């Protein structure tokens, strides 16, 4: 791993974050927004694991990444359930069309 420094991974994670952010702010499809959030969470995980590897701090970074993956699973389950609920009520998952709280 001589040629690849921690900066390489940080820049990769920043570019992945940028793609996720672009996805979140340009899409109106709720599923597309959720996919963008997954990209952002993955970019954070790359940072955790890269710094865990290059700082020699044992397993702390990897364990935090595992918690992030676990919370992402919970978030995906809840988020997709809400999206399906919205679809049943509104017949669309365009986030601009869903502006009523009353069902």
């Amino acid at each position, binding site marked *: 791993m001589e040629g690849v420094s921690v900066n390489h991974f940080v820049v990769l994670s*920043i570019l992945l974050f940028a793609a996720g952010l*672009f996805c979140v702010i340009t899409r109106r499809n709720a599923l597309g927004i959720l996919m963008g959030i997954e990209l952002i969470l993955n970019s954070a995980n790359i940072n955790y*694991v890269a710094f865990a590897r290059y700082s020699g701090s044992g397993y*702390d970074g990897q364990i935090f990444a595992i918690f992030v*993956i676990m919370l*992402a699973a919970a978030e995906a389950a809840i988020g997709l*359930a809400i*999206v399906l609920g919205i679809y049943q009520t509104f017949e669309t998952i365009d986030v601009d069309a869903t502006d009523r709280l009353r069902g």
Partner: protein
Amino acid sequence: MPITEAVFYLLATFTLVCALGVALSNNIMYSAFALMGTLLGVAATFLMLGADFLGVVQLLVYVGGILVLTLFAVMLTHRIAEVHVSNRAVGRPLAVLMVGAVAWWMIKVATAATWVVKAPGVPEPTTYGIGNAFLTDYVLPYEVASLVLLVALIGAVVVSRKEIQG
């Protein structure tokens, strides 16, 4: 070019091209499949960083779980044949400008910073250490996490089921 650099650039290119596919594709179905490529690329990046357990967890949970859930949701909310061209919340040029500025500054700061790093050693199997840490130092977060998952799954069932009147 050393082999590790070549592997890194190959992986990074694959991951970022797939991520751009997620962000730019008009068809939400193609986005979902591009997301699979991105998740696989990130799993390979984890393996490259010596995190073997985490790479497998990424495969199992993200590719095997979250992505399948997402595909289910895409198929349940869209007619599959329909190519849905969604109009954008923010115009694309404005979004490119904003995201480009954010990414530019972040890269500038990240490359200017001097990280305190140690030369990484030879990668070792991590499963034993992670399992030990979960049952000693991290036992409380571990139990809370299992509770969070339980609550989330029950909540997902409650939210998504159809209410039966009367």
